[in-house]
């Protein structure tokens, strides 16, 4: 290459400078836009306290958030939307119960009620960061393949539709769905439709040891539809 050492030194300086200017310019732009993109007006002291909990309990050492961290456990960027505040509370405070049947365990980290509330606030705020709709599996229009398959196979009865919309984040049928709650493949052998319907509104009235949060958000008709749908699940 017909370049002198002095010439190559100048190429080094100029090349580095160009890239550095672009990089620092965009850093400035990031600082200008980040408040809007992350809804910083909702970044309350509670959220910040939650971030402290997030760090002090080493959550990020197994989980990812915004895709960063460790890949041993699920990404928590949009976990608030995925399992809701009650789901987070249960997983954090009673992991040994929630993951009893899971082949990978979550440690019990002695998180207090207050710390859990702060953590939930932090994760709710995080879930609203405008991050180009990542991760793909948690986007609004993403309906999982298992949900689609189940819905298709059942001709989408009302009960099945309500079930896949509201229950499958925690429960599974035929191996499809979440693992937080028990699998419901043969729940029909245990309870009849009316009992299941009551269970959904008040789990502990049927099973005092249940960890399931009461589903007050479901209408009476929806609860009844799910009850009938589940009563038919006899494991065959």
């Amino acid at each position, binding site marked *: 290459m017909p370049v002198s050492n002095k010439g190559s030194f100048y190429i080094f300086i100029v*090349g580095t400078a160009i890239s550095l200017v672009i990089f620092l310019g965009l850093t400035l732009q990031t600082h200008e836009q980040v408040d809007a993109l992350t809804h*910083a007006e909702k970044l309350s002291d509670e959220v910040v306290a939650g971030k402290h909990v997030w*760090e002090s309990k*080493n959550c990020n050492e197994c989980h990812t958030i915004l895709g960063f961290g460790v890949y041993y456990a699920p990404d928590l960027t949009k976990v608030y939307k995925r399992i809701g505040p009650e789901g987070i509370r249960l997983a954090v405070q009673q992991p040994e119960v929630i993951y009893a049947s899971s082949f990978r365990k979550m440690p019990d980290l002695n998180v207090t009620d207050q710390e859990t509330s702060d953590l939930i606030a932090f994760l709710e705020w995080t879930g609203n960061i405008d991050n180009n709709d990542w991760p*793909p599996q948690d986007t609004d229009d993403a309906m999982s393949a298992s949900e689609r398959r189940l819905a298709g196979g059942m001709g989408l009865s009302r009960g099945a539709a309500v079930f896949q919309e509201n229950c499958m984040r925690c429960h599974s049928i035929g191996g499809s769905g979440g693992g937080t709650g028990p699998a419901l493949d043969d729940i029909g052998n245990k309870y009849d439709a009316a009992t299941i319907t009551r269970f959904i509104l008040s789990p502990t009235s049927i099973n005092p040891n249940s960890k399931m949060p009461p589903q007050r958000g479901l209408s009476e008709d929806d609860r009844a539809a799910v009850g009938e749908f589940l009563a038919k699940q006899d494991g065959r």
Partner: protein
Amino acid sequence: MQPGAPGEELVPYKSQRVAYWYFVIALGLFVLQILVGLWLAISYAFTIPQDIVDVLPFGMTRAMHTNLLVLWLLLGFMGGAYYLVPEEAKREIYSVKLAYIQLAAFVATGVTALVGFAFGWSQGRPILEIPLPLDFVVVVGALMFLFNVGMTVIKGRKTAVLGMLTGGLVFLALLYLFGMPFYRNLTIDWFYWWWVVHLWVEGAWELVTAAILAFVLIKITSVDRKVIEKYLYLETALFLFTGLAGTGHHYYWIGAPDTWLWIGGIFSALEVLPIIAMVIDTFLTQRRHGHVIKHKVVWLFAIGTAVGHLIGAGIWGFAHTLPQINYYTHGSQVTASHGHMAFFGAYALLNLTMFWYALPRLRGVRRYNPSGAHWGFWIMGFSVLGLSLAMGVAGVLQTYIERVLGEGFMTAQAQMQFWFKIVIFFGVCLLAGVLITIWKLLTPKETAAETE
């Protein structure tokens, strides 16, 4: 003058001997890192009972794994710097005592951090886990190091290699500061986290690497110093030109402006160019000067560094750096696969190249039987390739099952368990390769024959 020729001083400056303990401790940490890594792979492949998980969570062992990596590589760099600076500056190190105090500070920090992790004492931020009080010890240690190297360079002969080295070391130390504060906003937190992690491995460390590699090449090949310096500038120019703005490939999905998708995508696609230039450069050197290269083992590791850099950092990095692909692979085992191949190929091998140059000399050995070194090299190389490929398969499975099909996280993990058993197998092989390498590095025997 041919290095290793009779009559030439093996270690011309007394203070270069400081490097010995840096190298030996670095190697010990390397072994520890692999042992912890095996535990991590076991944790992926099998069920660890709740009782064990409650006492020693996966996260804290993973913190040990990554911190051991960073510590042994940095000690290797520092030892390498202490070894090469006297020969380049043509004078003894400013203060040998300070160099030992600094080593003690880093080792004490490392031991405290590792024991602390076992008890959950951590800042909870991946790779930057060590708690704030220890951060300050690191800063003091780094200042001692920079002062010591700086004073030696200022008082001695100035070369391009030394300029590149000190520039890289100052840059490295400055960036560490951005990882220390608490950030209220998670997005800003990760933004500056990458100033440490990305700008280290694709910025400051590349400068240090380039300087160390240039030093070794000047010593073991007959290539003129001026020629090596010229390529040092040109290749590092390309590394920094692409690497600085290339930081953008970490900012696609964090709540930063969309401009990063363009800048990050374009510049990181270019990031493979300096690596290709480096490989071509290496093979041209082999063709033109291969017959006069005396240190075949060192040269093997140097070629390994160039090729490993290309596979791990260049190809593996390029494969998932474009936003359209990264949307699906981001934060999956694909990243872990890339990380293992890149850190080993680029930085573990670079350190081992320097160790193979310096350690036999520090033990007073001029010629030794190279066959053990070759065995170590190939076993390590294929093991890391094997375990990275297994992680890569696991990562592609995860990407497809979790991100494309939308099945649950654990559904994907169940399909990946088999591949982590493969990782365990290659991890054991890697351990064997590293132990052979260390054994041969620390017990070289003078041979009369022309083997080396």
